[in-house]
């Protein structure tokens, strides 16, 4: 029996069950019914061909460990490498890291998923190549679904080249102007006073862009307030100007990290109907991560 088959058998077809990754974002989507059995996805790199720029790994693999293995070949994955976070966990939650401005959303990183369905079957979604439109895009549906449609067991991810240099800059600057003045900055953060910029790429280009930004070098990004996370249209971030509460906004992206908890956002009624139908179709008995909702 392979590790995947063992995982599928463990998930089984009956009774409430929950999949545990690194528990770094455990509270997202609400508490899981305490009666749910805990299962863990297989971990470890299964296949990495540097010339393919894709990697196959168990969903339980820690992102940091995966990045370390890829880093030896000058590559990484476009997933947030939070301490202890697992690949399956960050995909299931779907929240991006600070480099989203350049790397794009988490949902674009997943090429193929093998997951365990509510009836305990191993299902393949997507395919291993960097380009693929064979059938419906279940991979994107799974990203951000908080394990309520299926439990990720093994995934194929697109790899990205590691930038030659990666430097943070910070100071007082108008962030909404910078996002247009710079070409593909990796991150622009703003707390209402200070602006942080991450520039990556060829050393000479980073030097040029830094001159354009006119900001001194910094040690790194600020500590992010961990109370809440708000999703706003990038253009509406301007409305935060003058706000007294503590926040760090991702300029050009629209994610705002706040000190106070964020109030939950409900989907529009007609979308909520579709969400319910999707859940009903994939998990008719509601046994996967009961209590949690995407």
């Amino acid at each position, binding site marked *: 029996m392979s590790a995947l088959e063992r995982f599928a058998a463990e998930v089984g077809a009956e009774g409430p069950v929950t999949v545990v990754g690194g528990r770094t974002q455990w509270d997202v989507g609400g508490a899981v019914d305490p009666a749910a059995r805990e299962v863990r996805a297989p971990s470890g790199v299964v296949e990495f061909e540097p010339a393919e720029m894709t990697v196959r790994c168990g969903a339980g693999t820690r992102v940091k460990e995966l990045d370390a293995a890829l880093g030896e070949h000058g590559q990484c994955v476009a997933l947030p490498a939070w301490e202890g976070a697992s690949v399956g966990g960050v995909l299931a939650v779907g929240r991006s890291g600070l480099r989203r401005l350049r790397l794009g959303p988490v949902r674009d990183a997943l090429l193929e998923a093998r997951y365990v*369905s509510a009836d305990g079957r191993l299902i393949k979604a997507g395919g291993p190549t960097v*380009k693929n439109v064979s059938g419906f895009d279940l991979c994107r*549906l799974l990203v951000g679904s908080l394990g309520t449609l299926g439990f990720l067991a093994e995934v194929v991810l697109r790899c990205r080249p590691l930038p030659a240099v990666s430097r943070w800059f910070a100071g007082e600057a108008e962030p909404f102007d910078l996002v247009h003045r710079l*070409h593909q900055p990796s991150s622009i953060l703003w707390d209402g006073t200070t602006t942080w910029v991450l520039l990556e*790429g060829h050393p000479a280009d980073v030097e040029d862009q830094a001159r354009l930004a006119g900001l001194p070098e910094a040690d790194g990004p600020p500590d992010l307030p961990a109370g809440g996370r708000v999703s706003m*249209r990038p253009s509406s971030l301007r409305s935060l100007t003058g706000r007294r509460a503590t926040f760090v906004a*991702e300029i050009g992206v629209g994610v705002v990290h706040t000190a106070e908890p964020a109030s939950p956002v409900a989907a529009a009624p007609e979308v909520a109907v579709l969400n319910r139908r*999707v859940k009903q179709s994939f998990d008719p008995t509601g046994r996967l991560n009961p209590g949690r909702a995407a």
Partner: protein
Amino acid sequence: MNEKEPLPLVADLQRALAPDRVRVSPLELELYARDASIIAGRAEVVCFPLTTAEVQAAVRVCRKHGRPFVPRGSGTGLAGGATPIGDPVVIVTTKMTRILEVDADERVAWVEPGVLNLDLSRAVAHLGLHYAPDPSSQQSCSIGGNVATNSGGPHCLLYGVTSAHVLAIEVVLPDGSVAMLGGLDPEPAGYDLRGAFVGSEGTMGIATRIAVRLTPLPPAVRTLLLDFTSVDDAAATVSGIIAAGLVPAALEMMDAEITRAVEAFVHAGFPEDAAAVLLVEVDGLAAGVDAAASVVAEVGRAHGARTVRVAADEAERALLWKGRKSAFGAIARIAPNYYLHDAVVPRTRLVEVMRAVYDIARRHDLVMMNVFHAGDGNLHPLIVFDRRADGVLERVMAAGEEIIQACVAAGGVLSGEHGIGLEKRDYMPLIFSADDLDAQARLREAFDPDGVANPEKVLPAGSRCGDLQKIPEGAWI
């Protein structure tokens, strides 16, 4: 015939839209009986809504009369995704052509589905922006069609395919209701239904308004043309470039036959004695572009490139791209028909798969050309033929099936950018198990429980339950 009382279905559609935007003449039905594939079906009636409300009204009329509907854009698809099956109403979105809003600050445009791909890029060029997915048919394909098929294009190697550029979609669902999927904020609540809808080939509803991401034009661009005396060397160069940790903006290959055809057509100075040429583009900031261009040239020379030509200016760059993008026009001069395949293989397997593909054509005594997105392993073997010749169609189809099998055997997938439609529907079991297909059918069912939106497409019959049938009734090849 014109005197005849119109069918109640037609009369209702005429009332819902306008009499002149509901067509039933044999000539027009014939026009909409197929897309750019070689599979034909039959439309009962064709209609052209102008607004979301009209699309909604058309779908409701279909439901009232128990008719399926087939959404259709410009009809440039090659997989039969827009081929009407089951006497449906064809709902064409090509008259919904307004660019509704361009927000240069947020780099987002709201467009109607009939806006042509290249028209959008042209409309925002003065803002230093463009719409990155660039199918070769970009002068004639619509953004609604791009959304339906999750289209690609040469520059999707770096920038990603359509799904990476669509933020929100207003959709008329198969029950006639309207929903906004996705959003302009980065993390909309709920499941990524936007992502599920893109590439669903009209089986989950009709997109009526689309918010797309606009991408800044790169400050520096370098376009290189490398030529080789063997296809193997060109293919190995492709793998070598990726292995060097480089993701060019585009990395295209043309073989000897297509290069000659293109050169005769556009006179761009493509070497007519080359066995294969690579068109490589790198973009970004100046120093990075210089470094990347050097790596491309170096890897090419190490693999036996005879010459490395660098486009000196924008005019030369445009000419080289014109050659690449008019490849299919050039083919029309060689034979009246062509059958274009679309499959993806791991890019480290390009050399062996290319050999296998040429071998298949030889065995079936067919003329094959290859012009494709080599950088992401997206092959487009193209068989040119004259369908009037005896038995040629059978050989073309047999070769096609073998090509797909060779790609799948090498770890590839059925389609990179044209979709499954009807053409590849029955090949789906080559890469998906019954359980995998059942999962996809569940998604479709959540959007379209009655199966009225573009029936018989993408999933083989019986994916969820019931019997398997091969080519659906009413279709002929």
